Structures are given as C-alpha cells and as structure tokens.
C-alpha cells in the first residue's frame, strides 16, 4: 500500500512539474503588459522589464522561478491588481471565503444526498423513487448559475429573505455572515446533492439485489439490519472516495458562483487577474499552479482511499 501511494505521489509530482513548466514558459512568452502600463517612456519600460527579470534568458528565469517560487514559496508581488502587495499573502487572504462557502455546502449536501439516495434505492420503482430520480436528472443537468439566478430572484429579490451578495469580512461563523452566504450555498448545493443522490442510488440498488443480502435476510435479519450492516457498508466503497475527492475540490471552489454572489474568494481573484486590462501574471501563475495541484490531489486521494476502504484492493496491491 505504502509503495503504491509513494508511486502515485511521485508520478503526480512529475506531472505537476511538467504542467507548471509549460505554464511558466507560456506565461513568460505573453506580451509584457505589466511593464508597459506606466506609459510610453521607453526607458521606464526597460527599467521595469529589468526589475521584473524579463531581460534574463528564459532558462535562467525558469531556474529562478523553481528556486524562489516553487521551492521557496515566494510568488512575487502583484504587478497590477493589488499593486505592490505580496501575491502569496493576498492569495491566502482570499482562501477562507472560498473554503467557508464550499465547506458549508458540503456539510449540508453530503448527508442530504446520501439520505435521498438511500431512500430512493429502498423505495425502488415506487413513486418516491420515480419522483427523486426525475428531480435528480433535472438538478444534475441544469447549470449552477441558473439556480443562482433563480435563488437570487425568488429568495433575495421577491421574498427578501437574504441579501443579494455575500457580506465582506472574515467572521465566517457569525449568524449574519452565514445568512448572507445561504443563497450561494443553495446554488452550489443543488447540483452536489443531485449528483450524490444519483450515485448512491445506483450503487445501493446494485448491492440490494445481490445474493448475500438475500442470505442475510434468510438468516433472519430484518430489512433495516441488512440495509445498514451489509448493503450500506458495501455500497459506501465507491461512494466514500467520491465524497473525499469533492472535499479536496472545495478549495478550488466555483468561479461562476463566486462571481455572481460577490464572494471575495480565490475564483474571483483568478477571474480578476486575467480579465483586467493589465493581466496580473504573478497571480495567474500561482493560481494555475494551485488549480493544477488541487485537481491532481483529488484524483490521488480518490484512488488511494479506494485502497484503504476496500480490503480486496488493499490485499491485492501487496502481491
């Protein structure tokens, strides 16, 4: 198992390094707008280019980048968006808002999705199952920003239950703050709940029709006992890694929901750094690395947790 994990992590690091190197080269080849934003003064531009390190050979720049940014954690200072501020600390400042909204979403959508999925599987081919399955198809398919508009129009504008935008500030556990985050949480949650419901229902119905469950019933266990002790535990094998993967994904958040509800998070930082008239390449570099890492990590965690949760896979890997 340990060897397997080590192998996967090493492979991931190699992939990460390749992607980051490609991104670095591509970003450095972009027209250097941050140096030109201060006017047409040739000398000034040249000085800025020199200061930003653009005049060194690309390979030297790359080595500096590897040593200073990837290994040292210094991602430079902002060149246009938050002029002069440290990119890394600004990024860390934006992180809590994204994590808070997505963590709240997971907190309510994971139990709800599991419960609905279990209920639908137990009531398979009854009207409850048909109802849930139909709702799931609709909620899985409709893009999250359509819910966001609906939630904003109905709950925020018509019924005036919540404010339109998430409050600024960092007190993520206060009541006021939570209420202002509810529309965003709801919009994000619909899709997650529906996806999890569908997955749980599919896995559980498969387990519920298996022979060993029939045996358990024949031995005299009640339906509740067989479901909880036998069916659910086996059905959780593929479901649990999926939930775990989603938990890692909460850090990357949703660009579009952050934009709609004005959440001062990482996604908004990314969009702002590239849609500005003067793109902020240092933010862009850091966030590209961040999103790549999150994507790769969640993939690994899903695969590794399969091994931990399923003894068959764990034992199989020792051979």
């Amino acid at each position, binding site marked *: 198992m340990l060897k397997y994990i080590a192998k996967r992590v090493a492979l991931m690091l190699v992939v990460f390094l390749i*992607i980051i190197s490609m991104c670095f080269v*591509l*970003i450095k080849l972009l027209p250097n707008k941050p140096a030109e934003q201060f006017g047409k003064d040739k000398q000034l531009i040249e000085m800025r280019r020199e200061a930003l390190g653009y005049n060194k050979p690309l390979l030297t720049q790359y080595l500096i980048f590897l040593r200073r940014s990837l290994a040292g954690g210094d991602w430079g200072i902002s060149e246009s968006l938050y002029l002069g501020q440290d990119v890394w600390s600004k990024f860390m400042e934006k992180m809590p808002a994204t994590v808070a909204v997505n963590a709240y979403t997971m907190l309510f959508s994971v139990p709800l999705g599991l419960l609905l999925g279990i209920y639908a599987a137990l009531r398979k081919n009854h009207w409850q199952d048909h109802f849930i399955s139909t709702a799931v198809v609709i909620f899985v398919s409709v893009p999250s920003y359509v819910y966001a*508009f609906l939630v*904003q129009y109905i709950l925020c504008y018509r019924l005036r239950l919540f404010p339109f935008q998430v409050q600024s500030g960092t007190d993520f556990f206060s009541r006021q703050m939570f209420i202002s985050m509810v529309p965003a949480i709801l919009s994000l949650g619909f899709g997650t709940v529906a996806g999890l419901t569908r997955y749980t229902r599919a896995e559980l119905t498969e387990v519920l029709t298996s022979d060993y469950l029939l045996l358990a019933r024949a031995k005299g266990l009640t339906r509740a006992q067989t479901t909880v002790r036998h069916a659910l535990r086996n059905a959780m094998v593929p479901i649990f890694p999926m939930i775990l993967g989603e938990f890692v994904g909460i850090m990357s958040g949703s660009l*579009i929901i952050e934009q709609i509800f004005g959440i001062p998070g990482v996604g908004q930082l*990314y969009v702002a750094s590239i849609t500005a008239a003067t793109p902020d390449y240092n933010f862009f570099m850091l966030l590209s690395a961040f999103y*790549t890492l999150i994507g790769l990590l969640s993939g690994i965690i899903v695969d590794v947790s399969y091994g931990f949760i399923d003894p068959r896979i764990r034992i199989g890997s020792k051979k």
Partner: protein
Amino acid sequence: MTDDMKTLSREKFTFATDRDKRHDRPPETPPRGYFADAMYRFTRNKSSVVAAFIILILVLYALFVPLLFENAYTRSLTDTLTLSYAKLPPKARFPLPFLDGCSDKTVNASGYAALRAIAEETGVDPVVKVYTAGRQDASGGKKTVYYDLRVDNYKAMGMMLLTLTPAQYEALQAWQDETGIQAIYPAVKDAKQTDANIWYQADKKGAAKLDKEGNLVAAYKTAAEGDESYHSLRIPADDDPEHPLAYARVTGTSSARSYVVRVSKPAYFRYRYGFEPCFLFGTNDKGQDIFTRLAHGARFSFLLAIGISAINLLIGAVYGAIEGYYGGAVDLAMERVSDVLSGVPFMVVTTLFQLHLASRVGVVPALLFAFVLTGWIGMASTVRMQFYRFKGQEYVLAARTMGAGDSRIMFGHIFPNAIGTIITSCVLSIPGVIFSESSLTYLGIINLESSAMTSVGTMLAGGKAYLSTDPYIIFFPALFIALLEISFNLFGNGLRDAFNPSLRGTEE
C-alpha cells in the same frame, strides 16, 4: 367402426409428423440489426423521446429563426436608435398571458402625471389597470404619494428628441400624410427641456403644474410669422390658423440645416422599420431583440459543440484505438501524455490560449483549440477501453488469420463494435461543451460579444444587472440553456441504454 372407414383408400392417409412446425428453422420474422434494435428500444424510452423532440425544437429554433424572423429592426446592427427601445418586456403579436408587454410598477405623483400626459397627448393610455391610487407613504420623513399600476411598456415609451436632416424631416412628414399616423409632435416652449415627454408646464424637477381643475397645461411653442428658428407643419389637428404650432426647432447653419423634433417612439419605429414594435422575448438593455439574438447565440453554441465533438471524436478515436490495440509500451507512453494533458485545468488552458492566440487567429478559433486540446482525452479513454474489450475476441483472431492488416482490424472490425459507446459519449459531451462555453463567456474570460454575434453566456452576463428590474432579459437565455442541458442528458442516457445490448429485453 363403420364400413366407410374400413374401405378408406391408402392414398387418403398422410404421416402424422408435424413437418410444418419444425423448431430449428430460421425465424420467419425479419431479423433486426443492431441499429434497428437500438432505435426500437430508444423509442420505447418515453423520456428520451421527449428529450429528443425538445432538442429538435431547439435546433430548429436556432436554425430557422435567424433566417425567417429577421426584420429591418434586428438587421440594423449598428443603429444607435435601438437604445430608445431598450428593456421592452416580452409581447406576442396576439394576446397571450404574460406576453402582453405589461408590467406592474409603483410610481410617484410626477411619474403618474407623466403617464397621464402621454395618454392625453397621443390618445393611447399606457396605464392598463390601477391597483391602488394615492397610497400615502410617510416613511423617510416626507409624505409621498404612490400609485400601484399595471403599465403597457410599449405604450409608455413616449417621445424622444431626434435631430433630422431636411430630407429625413420631409420624408417623415410625407409618411405621416400617407398613413395618417402622427409621429411628430409640437415643440415645447422651453428649448432646453431634455425630457421629450414633458409637453406641459412643469417645474425644474419635472413635476407638473396643474390648473384649477387639475388638468395639465400645454406649453407648446407657437411659430410666429417670420420666425425662421422654428418650422411649422400643418396637420389637421392643428386648428388655430392664427398661431400655428411649431413642430421643429431649426438648428445648424443656413447651408446645412437640421431639425430637432419631438417624435413618438412607437410611431417612429413604425416609420423606420415598417412594423409595430412587438418583441416576443422582449429587448435587452441595448435594445436588441432577444428572440433573434438568442437564436444566433444558440446557433453558435450548437455549431461549436458539434464541431468540437466531431474533432474530439476523430482525434480520440485514432489515439484510443492505437493505445488499446497495441497496448504494452505504446499504451504506457501514450497514457502518460494524456495524463499530463488531463492534469491541466481547463480554465487555465482556455485563458492561456485566449491570451496567446485570440489576437492572432481570433477568439473563436482560440476557444476551439482550447476545447480540443483537453477534450479528446475522454473520448480516447472510452475508445481505448472498448479496444481492450474486443481485441482478444475470436472474430479479431479470425480476421487476422485471413490476412487483415492492423488498420483494417482496428477500423474495419473492432471499431464498428464499439460504435454505440462512442456515439453515446459523443452526444453526452455536447452539453458539457455548451456549459463550459457559456460559463467562460459569462465570466468574461472570453469575449464573443459583437453586434453581429453573441453567445448564450454573454446574454446571461448582460442580463444579470437587470435581474430584479427586468428579469425577462436573463430568463429566456437561462431557460434555453436549462432545457438544452436537461434534454441532452436525458437523450444521451436513452442512447446509452439503447446501444447496450445486454439491457435487451429488460424493459418489457
């Protein structure tokens, strides 16, 4: 036994075997092929058939609306006049609930007076229904009177000030004479008045000064004889020959004169574009017709999605086929390449392509490249799996013993067996592309907005600011994309089940 039976001749007997009911004969019903069977089982799945019909309707909408429903107004792409017709709610040509161009409004006293003034001057009352009149509201210190009304927004457009050349002015006059519709209304005394709707005496804030009976007092300019600064125009309603009303303020130099006129927006629309203003889905904040514009956006989305899945199919099929067929070291090496590519977040790829290529090859090709760069990986892994499944089977071995080459086995024998799965994943990738494209344009990472082109995401982003005041601007694009995503998913799931032969017979 009777005698008859004893004397039966031998010829009348036949053997009692049921030769006609042999059970190992080929079935008499015509055999059903793979696709016919898939089609049959697809049509049994009601929700997928409904979804297919919805997709058909949406595609027809995207295809034919730009062809059939374009008119002089929607074609006038760079006409700044369209701003005068912005934010008109949906209205159908025949009475329909919700599509009547009306909306509920709460106005204060001067707002109500302005609506009454339009009714009095043009003879068309924009107020459809008065819910409550003169509601007192003392909040905020000052006592204010409010009116809750249902207003026809098409009639409430009122007047605008236009500067016309003499030729345009005369043409408009000629049109008035010909049709009998009054478009030009008399000029008001105060030449500095910017609100063209105020034809009555009012204070600086626009609140009407009423006479003793509570009526509006007209403040029309009359043209004195010999005064060249105003142009007079005789119309039948103008009944005072001594003091003819002035209709246009004359400006400009003597060689290049122009006329500033107050024209009725609906009447001028009819003059300019040849039909009465009426927009089925309403108009957006720039005055563009949402019905035809959404069709343009939909057309773009469909074309992009179909183009991308075709390219991805091509690349993915070849790549996956090579991986799956040869296996071993080839597979390992090629898998690492797709590992690296699939690790790059799509958002980053799009951004990089946009920043690098958009200025060189255009926004749409850059977007296309970004989609293709990572999009084919899913298709390749599907094809690879199918090839692993089929390459060890007997028919492949048989083909090889008969001398078929690698490419013939791959694309002549294995590929047709995997076609069902491939078609399904192709169809299921279309809603994903449309979703990504609309998100990217919504966020402004790619900009597809121009006078001739748009995308659904751009329309959503444009309507976001008017979500609470004019929700219909965002409603129709959002409805379109929601319907599209739901029906494509249902349709794709139906296809997947139909193409899966192991599910045969389970539905009945």
